């Protein structure tokens, strides 16, 4: 395999990054799962920008919400678990990027948009969602789960099995 080699410290840093993002995802999912009757409808209804129509359409369709809500909650939790454990790391980070991308598109930080919901901090186009998305991109391409994570065991198994 032609791949970059990382020093121990660099590898540790990548693993820490992966685990903290995983923690965040896992709690986002668990917190929603623990809240009886949680629904994405409120968030979706506040959508602005070019895709607002799509998101509002989802918010107003109980049947679609019935799929989107559990998908979102369990999705977040499983992505979080995957990132923490380094299990299917590439899949988890790619899925995480997609999820965050969808959130961003729902409320894109376009220049000149003023939101009724106050946000902490000051952002111009880039917000913390996008930062987290970029960090997931780093995790996706470095695949740190193969070094410190269950992927390493899976990988060895898989290879041994093939042998």
């Amino acid at each position, binding site marked *: 395999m032609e*791949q970059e080699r990382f020093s121990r410290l660099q590898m540790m840093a990548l*693993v820490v990054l992966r685990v903290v993002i995983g*923690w965040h995802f*896992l*709690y986002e999912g668990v917190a929603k799962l623990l809240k009886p009757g949680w629904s994405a409808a409120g968030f979706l209804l506040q959508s602005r920008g070019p895709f607002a129509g799509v998101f509002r359409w989802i918010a107003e369709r109980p049947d679609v919400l019935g799929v989107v809500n559990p998908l979102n909650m369990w999705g977040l939790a499983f992505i979080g678990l995957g990132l923490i454990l380094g299990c299917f790391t590439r899949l988890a980070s790619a899925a995480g990027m997609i999820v965050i991308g969808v959130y961003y598109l729902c409320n894109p930080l376009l220049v000149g948009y003023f939101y009724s919901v*106050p946000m902490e901090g000051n952002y111009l186009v880039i917000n913390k969602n996008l930062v987290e998305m970029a960090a997931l991109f780093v995790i996706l391409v470095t695949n740190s789960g193969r070094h410190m994570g269950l992927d*390493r065991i899976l990988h060895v198994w898989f290879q041994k099995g093939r042998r």
Partner: protein
Amino acid sequence: MAEDDKKDQQGESGKETGKLMNRRDLLQGLSTVPVLGLFGYALNKQIGYERAQKEALAGPAAPAAKPSEINVALLGQGAQGEVLLSAMLKVPGLRFRAVCDIWTEYNQKRAVNTLKKYNFDVNGYEDYQEMLAKEKDLDAVVIATPDFWHSQHTVDCLKAGLNVYCEKEMSNTLDGARRMVHAARETGKLLQIGHQRRSHPRYIHCFEKIIKEAGLLGRIVTVNGQWNRAVKPDLGWPQRYTIPEDRLEKYGFKSMEQFRNWRWYKGLGGGPIVDLGSHQIDIYNWFLQSQPKGVVASGGTDYYDAATHEWYDTVMAIYDYETSAGRIRAYYQTQTTNGSQGYFENFMGDQGTLLISESEAAYSGMIYRDVSAPPWDSWIQKGYVSVPRVLGPQPEGAEAVLDVRESVSPDEHRIPISFRDPYHKPHLENFFRAIRGTATLNCPAEVGYETAVTVLKVNEAVEANTRLTFSPDEFSV
């Protein structure tokens, strides 16, 4: 990676050939699993705190056992009597036996009819003496007559062997109030004064938990409070229910107009400062655990017709307290010409501010943490106060004046106690529980007396136009 792995293979797994994978693979592979344990631990803690908050919000569970019946008479069924009755109809274990009200053709009739609807067979009386003579198995009476009747009604009912719930103001004179305390002591019967905030779960939470236990306000230095009420026409009455003059006179009223608007007349009521202020000034004494040393006050009938509004429509008073923690100044105002900002009490200490009122709609319990105070996280975890709302960003254009000397706005927390019952229900329940021996009175005669001393002095101070002092023994009987 390849090289790294190769090194591993050579290093350790050389000894462990034959196994599916080496120890290093296993250790590295599982290296982040403990994070899940940490997550589980944190999550468990968090859920515990959230549950504690919810429980604090829900309040104590109601007792399940069916209570023994208490035979109740109602004395005075005007506006407040009606409010108390509707609250009592939600209290289990009461048997209403008699209603006494001199306005037989109107208020008495309404109360009797209401109780009939609830299947209580009650007798109506005009004269309370007759009621006491004829109704032999009464346990308790709830008195909501005009202030100047309280003393006589209460003393006679206590002497007839009844437990008494008497509306505030305990009496319009200290003499009358003192007789009530003596009668309660002599007869050994219960006397609860109707300062209902004393039993309100939010007020109890604020005093017991926020002020006494957690000390979140730090040292309280100033208090302010108010009851502002919009202009209101004098109370009228349906002409066909006018009370004959001889009956009015027999019960101390000069006219139907005075009978309806007794609270504005000297000798009958005490004006807004007594009517409204006494509720809140009672809270001052309670929360400060002290009585004032002096009071200055200004007031007058500035707006209404002084002939029909003998008591002051506008009063502003400042008490000074001398507590073991230090001096406290407490402002109170009541005016009856503009209702803005309604009513509230606001306690300000060097660490926090508590803004509270009886209302669920406005000022239903906010507490602000001053920047100098230590963090309140542990009290949030216990459910004593809610998660803070950081008070919003500076208003538009504020940058220009923003300056390091400006104080940072404090965090706003809420008192997590909402209350859905009629306001007077807990206080009445406390009274009935005390009769059954399962509670002690939240506002016994002695407490009502202290408040009466504190409040009635304001009217004196307005008249005297100078600071009046309280002597410490003035508050005890």
